[in-house]
């Protein structure tokens, strides 16, 4: 036996030696970090093979990236690395219904010269359905490892952009040398959001809804034309190579769904209204407010992914002499909070299957928020189904992922305790059969950390990435302008004021929009009797803002720079 193992070792060494000297395609590993074997046997574990089905003292065998055996008395292959999982719990790794995981935000698009037209360039208007997340994937993106650390194995990743950013793909949250290794399935859905173009058409939901109808109906005509031409081109005008219309062809043919990124209840209804008008297959994700539309969701059978982003629990004012009015307002606010945290349970009660989306949620909030939903009535089995089997079936993955069963992709989550308990921690993740280990922290340390995050939440306004005072530098042809930008957030909307050190009167900032790091606003200043419109778009990185400002006056426009630093500690 021993000699056999030695032989095997030699063989492996030899192989790796050859690999070192052969083409770059091979899996060379001069660091020696890569696994010796891709066969694992996770022994003596409690295996939750799917929601509601638990096996004690079971073994899961993984080989070549697949689950090859699950059960009590399974034989362990010779080449397997045996992991003693006594006291550990094995789940199918989670599936994220919608996120930007793995994608790198593209450089912001420069503002075109001629923007005030009914049809500004498509890339600026955000109408790029022909694009794909594939062109934005960055294998070094930290989001891949941070979402994996949060328990996810597959992400339905969507591209950055505006109204129609492009197609989504299913991404395996694994380390890779090349992007192709982690793309499980390409061009899964056409991704859409209610995000207008700064200062150009369509600028807001009004224009977006109309533009959608216009694009879709033209795409239907284009598809008919293309098919007619394919049958017999003779005597027919040639169909234009219209990339936007062509991107809609599979949607019109219903081989591809539209995934609408929605936020509030009215967004959900708008997406459903477009679906009703135009007839495509719809999925909705990022849903935060669905409690008033349970009947409609059930009737329409729309696949739905709830947002894992929950509001912070309201804090009661501890004043002894607070007025009845304040008490009533606090009570109403608490009721509202309950609606958010119990809606998953309400949907479950109504028999609606749903998944979750992490878009806008940090990985380290995932478990806490699912636990909050469980405390508010969601069953553990349904929470697990939302994270695994429901998501798998809605994304057409149920044959390959979502359960711990033979033949499925080896995407596993190994936790130190039943996952839906306070003390559980993720010890290992297997993605596509590759093992990732995590340090298990002592409970005490964890507690400290959680109080830490609480403390920082208290100062919720100072936590807002935009709200507050910023000192800006605005580089104009006449020199550098300085002053303050003050942003205020009220009811989820930003307003702002800009002050000038040179004594120019304050001006209100209009159309202040902040979305995932991108901040846009515009303002008007007086340029010697002419109104100068300035539109600023840029990225917020912590306390720093770097933006491009486009100033337009009398048909001319030019690019300027505006940078700002947030005040305070």
């Amino acid at each position: 036996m021993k000699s056999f193992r030695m032989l095997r070792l030699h063989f492996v060494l030899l192989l790796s030696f050859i690999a070192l000297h052969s083409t770059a395609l091979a899996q060379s590993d001069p660091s020696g970090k890569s696994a010796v074997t891709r066969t694992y046997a996770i022994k003596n574990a409690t295996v939750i093979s799917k929601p509601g089905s638990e096996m004690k003292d079971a073994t899961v065998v993984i080989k070549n990236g697949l689950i090859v055996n699950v059960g009590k008395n399974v034989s362990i292959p010779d080449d397997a690395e045996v992991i003693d999982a006594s006291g550990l719990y094995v789940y199918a790794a989670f599936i994220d219904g919608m996120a930007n995981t793995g994608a790198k935000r593209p450089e912001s698009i420069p503002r075109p010269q001629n923007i005030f037209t009914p049809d500004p360039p498509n890339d600026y208007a955000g109408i790029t359905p022909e694009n794909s997340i594939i062109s934005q994937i960055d294998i070094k993106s930290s989001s891949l490892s941070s979402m994996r650390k949060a328990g996810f194995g597959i992400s339905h990743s969507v591209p950055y952009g505006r109204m129609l950013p492009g197609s989504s793909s299913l991404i395996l949250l694994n380390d890779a040398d090349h992007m192709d290794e982690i793309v499980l399935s390409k061009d899964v859905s056409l991704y859409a959001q209610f995000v207008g173009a700064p200062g150009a058409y369509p600028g807001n939901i009004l224009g977006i809804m109309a533009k959608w109808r216009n694009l879709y109906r033209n795409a239907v005509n284009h598809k008919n034309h293309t098919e007619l031409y394919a049958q017999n081109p003779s005597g027919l005008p040639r169909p234009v190579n219209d990339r936007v219309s062509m991107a809609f062809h599979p949607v019109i043919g219903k081989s591809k769904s539209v995934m609408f990124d929605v936020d509030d209840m009215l967004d959900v209804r708008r997406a459903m209204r477009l679906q009703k008008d135009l007839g495509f297959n719809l999925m909705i994700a990022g849903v935060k407010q669905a409690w008033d539309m349970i009947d409609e969701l059930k009737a329409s059978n729309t696949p739905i992914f709830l947002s894992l982003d929950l509001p912070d629990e309201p804090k009661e004012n501890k004043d002894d002499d607070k007025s009845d009015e304040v008490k009533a307002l606090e009570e109403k606010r608490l009721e509202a909070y309950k609606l958010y945290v119990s809606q998953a349970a309400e949907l479950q009660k109504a028999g609606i299957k749903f998944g979750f989306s992490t878009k806008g949620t940090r990985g380290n909030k995932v478990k806490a928020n699912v636990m909050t939903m469980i405390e508010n009535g969601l069953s553990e089995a349904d929470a697990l189904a939302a994270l695994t089997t429901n998501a798998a079936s809605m994304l057409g993955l149920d044959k390959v992922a979502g359960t711990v069963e033979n033949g499925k992709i080896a995407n596993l989550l190994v936790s130190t305790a039943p996952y839906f308990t306070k003390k559980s921690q993720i010890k290992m993740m297997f993605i596509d059969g590759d093992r990732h280990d995590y340090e298990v922290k002592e409970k005490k340390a964890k507690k400290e950390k959680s109080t830490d995050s609480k403390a920082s939440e208290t100062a919720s306004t100072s936590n807002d990435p935009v709200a507050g005072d910023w000192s800006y530098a605005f580089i104009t042809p006449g020199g550098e302008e300085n002053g303050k930008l003050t942003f205020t957030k009220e009811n989820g909307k930003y307003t702002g004021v800009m002050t000038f050190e040179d004594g120019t009167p304050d001006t209100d900032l209009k159309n202040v929009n902040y979305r995932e790091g991108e901040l846009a606003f515009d303002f008007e200043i007086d340029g010697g009797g002419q109104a100068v419109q300035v539109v600023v778009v840029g990225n917020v990185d912590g306390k720093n803002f770097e933006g491009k400002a486009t100033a337009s006056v009398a048909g001319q426009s030019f690019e300027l720079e505006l940078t700002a630093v947030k005040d305070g500690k």
Partner: protein
Amino acid sequence: MKMKNILTILLALFSTMALAQVKKGDVLIKGGTVLTVTNGTLENTDVLVRNGKISKIGKNLRAPRGVETVDATGKFVMPGIIDAHSHIAGSAINEGTSQVTAEVSMEDVVNPLDVSIYRALAGGVTSIHLMHGSANVIGGQNETLKLRYGYTNPDDLRFEGAPRTIKFALGENPTRGGRSRGIQPQSRMGVENMIRNSFTQAVAYKKKWDAYRADKSARKVAPEYDLRMQTLVDIMNGDVLVHCHSYRADEIYMLMKVFSDFNIPKLTFQHANEAYKVAPELAAFGASASVFADWWAYKLEVYYSTAYNAAILTNNGVTTSINSDSGELIRHLFHEAAKTQKYGNLSDDESLALITLNPAKQLGIDNRVGSIEEGKDADIAIFDGHPLSVYAIPLMTFVDGVKYFDKATDKGDMRLYVNPESSIEEVMIYDRHDDHRCLEGANALNLRELFSNKK
């Protein structure tokens, strides 16, 4: 077709029907002074409402079994107030990024959660005309709503069957945008030109599609679809009523000429502070006007007006309404109507018509609402005194016979969706409805500044 499929389809139909159903009420309003608007004032009269409609008006009516009775003795019962120009209950107001955006529609952005709806109900208002803003020459389509506060589905607030309407804008608002961007229109001439060009393009668009539809060939290729052009075609076909933001008499007259040239018969001028100067012309055209009672001088083009505007228009036979254009003014439109008695000696019925029947005519819903008549919708407001008295207080407001406001049981905090992360201590008074830009610059001019000799 398989039975299972048929059943599924039936079930789907039934469930959407069930969802679209809004509540219709039954009520007997007893012993009030009924201001019918179309049939004078009826003392000590009962109004019986069945299934959301006024089924009988008369004396000593008896409530059918199970129908609630409201005692209106000593009180005044009037048709629900209709605001022909409002920007409450909208998630967005302007798609101001381009000068002709006929394709956008306020029906897509109705926000049933806006607490302003309840505040309007508390002022006796039952219907509003939710308008697109006036940032562009041809703005978006508007939406006529019934204020059924409490529903969260925007469709449930829709005034079902109301004609489509659209917003146009003349004067300073669209030209300011044009000048700052260096595009058309930079002057009133440019505004006229843009409207004429747009309609001319729409005529060409219609021709293309008519030819396509007439083509019997199986191998025909559809022309490009353009929702913007299609909407303009619909206007010319008379399917969409135009409501135009305007101030000056010359531009009001200009638009009537343009509409005559394109054979568009129906036209309502909004604001129209100088409409009284062209009142006979408006009457001859058949155009109507929706004005303020006594609000002007908030920017240069509206520097000159008169509180007699509504009265002069009415006396010249122009269908005139008084609108709010504001989430605050909407709560006391009855005061605004009363001002026309002070200034123009209009009769009670004429004054009340300014906020009921006439706006209903302008919106094409006068067959349904705007007066208390048998067969009309039971959209009714009850006041403790005559609504044209400054002392009158609205007590109850009914839409489709359902009580949506009752002063006696008012809960105070009527917000529907509360932000769980909002802070309670902080009070911020900010009127989002000023964002619609119709009165842009309204706060920039004040009398003291205007007549001050200090610069």
